């Protein structure tokens, strides 16, 4: 394992200390691993998200004007505990209530719901939304259901803008839910990542193999296939998204997301191929984001996210964001 770290046990707190040094707008709370905005408006709905670490810039990089008020980090790939999330809620609350944006993983659901219970016992008003954008996994009301991956960043962006404009907790929640309803993603991985505490890869892929539908923690995908061209990856992945949600005739925001070790060169190539398919299919592109938004340490691979827009979502997507992870 080659990593720029001091000790595997300290990677999360030391990362957040470094992030705080790089961003004068935020403050870091040690022990609970919370990054929160320094400047607080009163009576603005607070937006809190978080999850396991290793997905940078998610989630601490999305704290800032126009996006999150606080982000809560767990250990690498493990959900933050309820006491940490509670601190995030307390920091984000300015009297108008707090919305928790949760990715659909059983650990996140349990820890965030328990934090909600604890916050409500303190008299705080808390609502939750659950992002489940990954089309690789079947949706079902009876099971854990599909995962929340890069589409979560669009939810942060749009709900953040809505809250910044002074909407009520109910309104911010409704807009977040509309975004969740219209967002779909699919990922693929080419090489695994190494958890600092473990020191070796969490899964193996042959040198000529890729895995389609891989989750952001390296959990298995839906299909293993031989190496293909960028054009073929684009076709396979777009087809999986379109099989799940009909974007024909709509105007969309597109996110081409790198998992941590994929050069921008390759993401742009993929973006070119995806954009051509969209043109052929008559799906109108409103805005494109290419970069590393929801990573998996140094995993190589990517994900593609589509968000169907209406006038409200377009306006909120264009609203200013000063969060370092996604400046608009």
């Amino acid at each position, binding site marked *: 394992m080659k990593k720029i770290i001091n000790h*595997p046990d300290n990677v999360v707190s030391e990362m957040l200390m470094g992030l705080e040094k790089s961003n004068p707008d935020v403050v870091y709370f040690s022990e609970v691993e919370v990054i929160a905005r320094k400047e607080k408006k009163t009576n603005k709905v607070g937006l809190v998200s978080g999850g396991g670490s290793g997905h940078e810039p998610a989630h601490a990089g999305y704290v800032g004007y126009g996006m999150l008020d606080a982000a809560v980090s767990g250990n*690498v*790939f493990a959900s933050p505990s309820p*006491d940490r999330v509670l601190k995030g809620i307390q920091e984000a609350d300015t009297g108008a209530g707090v919305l928790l944006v949760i990715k659909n993983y059983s650990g996140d659901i*349990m820890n965030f719901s328990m934090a909600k219970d604890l916050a409500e016992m303190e008299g705080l008003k808390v609502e939750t939304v659950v992002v489940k954008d990954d089309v690789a996994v079947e949706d079902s009301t009876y*099971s854990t259901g599909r995962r929340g991956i890069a589409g979560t960043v669009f939810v942060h962006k749009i709900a953040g803008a809505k809250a910044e404009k002074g909407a009520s907790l109910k309104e911010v929640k409704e807009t977040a839910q509309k975004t969740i309803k219209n967002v779909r993603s699919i990922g693929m991985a080419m090489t695994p990542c190494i958890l600092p*505490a*473990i020191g070796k890869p969490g899964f193996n892929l042959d040198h000529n193999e890729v895995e389609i539908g891989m989750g952001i*923690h390296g*959990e298995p995908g839906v299909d293993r296939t031989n190496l293909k061209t960028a054009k073929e990856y684009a076709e396979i992945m777009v087809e999986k998204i379109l099989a799940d949600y009909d974007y024909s005739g709509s105007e969309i925001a597109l996110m081409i997301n790198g998992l941590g070790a994929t050069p921008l060169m390759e993401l742009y190539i993929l973006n070119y191929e995806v954009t051509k398919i969209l043109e052929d299919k008559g799906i109108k592109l409103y805005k494109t984001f290419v970069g590393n938004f929801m990573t998996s340490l140094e995993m190589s691979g990517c994900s593609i996210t589509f968000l169907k827009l209406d006038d409200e979502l377009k306006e909120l997507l264009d609203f200013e964001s000063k969060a370092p992870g996604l400046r608009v």
Partner: protein
Amino acid sequence: MKKGLNTKDVVEVLKRIAKRIEENKDYITELDAILGDGDHWANMNMGYQKIVSIEDELLKLNLADLLKKIGMTLMSTIGGSSGVLYGVAFITAHKSLIDVDEIDELKIYEVLNSGLNAMMERGNAKPGDKTMIDTLYHGVKAYKESLDNKEKFETAINKMVKSAEEGMKSTKDMEAAKGRAFYRNDKGVGHIDPGAVTMYYQLEELAQYILM
């Protein structure tokens, strides 16, 4: 053979569990790399090492406060699904020990059973979902049956461990309904759940200490 457990005994059991988990890094990590994302051992180990590091503080607590402190520590240190579940288990179980000086036969049942119920409720999980519940549920059930049949304490403890082990092994053929293994096409069939194994280590260390 111990008749009952006081604070010192519980702390001793925790230290033994910490050692057992520490020693089984490769096995647990390998299981979790197949079924999940490979961090179960690292998180459990961090949780129990933290417990060991606050030994002096723990030794000063009465049994109820001890369990609450263990729950809070595991919850915030382990994180993830295991953290919140162990957290609620110990924190809920502490109520069985208010004003109690010694965990006797019956109290062992009450503590384990209230922990089990808290885990099932918070995790919305039941036996058969391929989780650590499968280990604990069968262990607790066998122990209770043995107590109800007025069998000897030693027999009850032995039956608890044996059933817990069977519960753990039974996760091998189950389809996952919870957690990361759920996302595999084969739902993890053919592999023992790593959470069921670490749960087994804890019950087995408890039993071995009592039987000593």
